[in-house]
């Protein structure tokens, strides 16, 4: 039962003249205010319910497939639900690889953009830059997917080839079966890879992380900033001493928020990769997969049981993303910047 402390009326023991010691006079709320409080609390409950229902329905639909597969769901490296052989081992690994590489590429850019907007940008242009970064976050994923598939794939292959050749001794950067010094080697061995998908997803994730960080950086206390300058620090010295420690929670939180978004990115990944269902540790090699692109690719021709398996994968993704975001919001709210602005 929800408590409405503002609405509870203590039965008064008489008129104001006879109030006993220790009882506080409580306000009588008008009907309008009671209805308002009810409606407001109701909307909060509704929103909470919707969120909870998402998880509940996914779990209900996924039950059939999960009960059939059992624990092998997490260790199998194939996706043939109709023959009973399906598991998200490779798919989950692919999702995590895309997410991790995307956030690795996004974090330096996000921190740099946030620092630039809060420290270096001319004051009159700050709002424009903030709008530009928000615009980058609002660009539809189809647009990024089209750009990635038609432009980046063609033009980045050269650089990725170089990396595979000269940095191929690092195990996950090698492309087995592709000799780049051979002029007849097919360039498509390097397209549709995890790394390419991660590059495009990084562009989608950077503005989100950057906004969170920028909000924290601009709240760094002016007194501390000026103390740093007064002690003779340069601008970068002040940033390192005041702004970055203040925004440390926001940096971590923003990064994790971006990671949550990167894990769930569907359309961009679907448009770039060509799917494989085994664990693919070579990020430069063609063939990648993520949970959301699996669902987008397979839902159309899935049978009932196949649909249930897809729901199970979706549930796993949902739980993973929720966990990452919960941790992110807790870190941000506990940081110095978050606790200062919490209502």
């Amino acid at each position, binding site marked *: 039962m*929800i408590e409405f402390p503002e609405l509870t009326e203590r039965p008064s023991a008489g008129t104001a003249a006879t109030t006993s010691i220790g009882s506080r006079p409580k306000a009588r*709320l008008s009907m*309008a*205010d009671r209805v*308002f409080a009810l409606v*407001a*609390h109701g*909307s*909060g409950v*509704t*929103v*909470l319910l*919707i*969120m909870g229902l*998402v998880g509940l*329905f*996914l779990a209900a*639909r996924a039950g059939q497939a999960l009960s059939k597969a059992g624990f092998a769901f997490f260790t199998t490296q194939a996706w043939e639900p109709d023959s009973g052989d399906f598991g998200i081992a490779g798919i989950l690994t692919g999702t995590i690889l895309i997410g991790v590489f995307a956030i690795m590429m996004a974090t*330096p*850019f996000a921190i*740099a*953009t946030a*620092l*630039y907007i809060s420290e270096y940008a001319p004051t009159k242009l700050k709002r424009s*830059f903030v*709008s*530009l970064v*928000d*615009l*980058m976050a*609002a*660009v*539809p994923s*189809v*647009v990024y997917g*089209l*750009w990635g598939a038609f*432009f980046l794939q063609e033009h*980045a292959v*050269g*650089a990725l080839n170089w990396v595979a050749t000269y940095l191929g001794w690092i195990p996950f950067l090698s492309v087995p079966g592709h000799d780049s010094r051979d002029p007849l080697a097919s360039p498509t061995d390097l397209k549709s890879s995890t790394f390419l998908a991660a590059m495009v997803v990084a*562009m989608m994730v*950077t503005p989100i992380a950057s906004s969170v960080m920028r909000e924290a950086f601009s709240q760094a206390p002016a007194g501390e900033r000026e103390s740093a300058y007064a002690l003779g620090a*340069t*601008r970068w*010295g002040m940033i390192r001493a005041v702004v970055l420690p203040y925004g440390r929670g926001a940096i971590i939180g923003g990064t994790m*928020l971006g990671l949550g978004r990167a*894990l769930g990115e*569907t359309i961009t990944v679907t*448009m770039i990769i060509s799917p494989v269902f085994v664990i693919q540790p070579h990020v430069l090699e063609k063939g990648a997969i993520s949970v*959301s692109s699996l*669902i*987008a690719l397979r*839902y159309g021709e899935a049978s009932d049981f196949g649909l249930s398996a897809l729901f199970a994968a979706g549930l796993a*993704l*949902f739980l993973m*993303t929720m966990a990452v*975001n*919960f941790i992110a*919001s807790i870190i941000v709210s506990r940081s110095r910047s978050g606790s200062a602005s919490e209502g």
Partner: protein
Amino acid sequence: MPARIQIRRQVSQRRETDVLALVGAVAAAASLTWLLFTQIAPFSGALGWLAVGYLTFLGVYALLVSLDENALTVRDRLAAAVIQSLAGVLLLILVFVIGYILVQGVTAMIHSNFYTQDLSATSPLDPLTRGGVLHGVVGTLIEITIALLITVPLGLTCSVFLSEFPGSFARLVRTFVEAMTALPSIVAGLFIYSTYILTFGLQKSGFAASLAMSVMMFPIIIRAADVVLRLVPGSLTEASLALGASRWRTVWHVTLPSARSGLATAVILGTARGIGETSPVLLTAGYGGGLNLDPRSGPMVSLPLLAFTLRNSPQHVMVARAFGAASLLMVLVLLLFVVARRLGGQGPGVLTPKQQRRRDHQSTLDAGRIAGRIAGRIADRRLRARAADVVGPDAELRYETQSGVSQ
């Protein structure tokens, strides 16, 4: 004694040596990279050019600055160069992506039939002068309208709840909402698919797509509106409450109007995000080639879904149409953003110049009216005092003054 000559002090932070160091470093890096790539080493490729050039620039810049300054300043300048260049690269990439899509979509967008026909009567080999994306545009508009009708009342009420009734429950709701801002769009589509279509047994339709879009838009609208409502100055609400208004009236007459522009921005940002989502519509609305005006039945395509599906076609014409649909979508999002920026204005309580002029004019009128009323009362009193001298203190006097008939 002659006055001491004053030397003009330079207060700007930028000095000639700084600018020269920057320009010199860029020039040196460009030439060195050119030398490296064409004469000395077997490197090739534009990306390699940029990478090597950037590193060379940083090295040469550090060297040039260290000729004049100490190590502390060198580190500061280097950090500033790195930060500003990374931020610049990000913004350049954004401009480039948008530009690329628009340029590629122009070939399809210049035909007027692109906006007036749909693809039901077009075969895959037809040229760009036949067929269009009308069904995508109409589908997007219908779906987003229904989604807004669902999301805006509930979302704004929830954000009002979060700002008006702070407490542990509100903190719980806020944590949930913030966690849900990164709900994968495919999961939202799956949710509606499993409830609306599988459990309730209804068809794939535009309405289901609207429901899925609203699940995606809720957290964004609630979060943005919550931030705006928290910025409304407490003095305004407290003044209203002190004057005896109930909480409800305070919210309706004071809080919401002051935050009006910020709330509009929040709604528009949520709309921009909702319009661009493909996967919820993919799962819940299905793909059909014809124009469908009924959201309750039949597949209803949206612009992003159209671009996503057409892109897989092996025909160049269809891919051009996909780019055209994506460009149209991009133009729509840009338009929404410009509108949001204009509406956003400054924070609550701060007015645009036009609003300020209007308010000044109203204040002048009010001042004139109040002054007239005061003058009228003073005139009343003087007139009454003079009349009492003449007629006696008990006589009744009726006459018209500026403030109306008075006794």
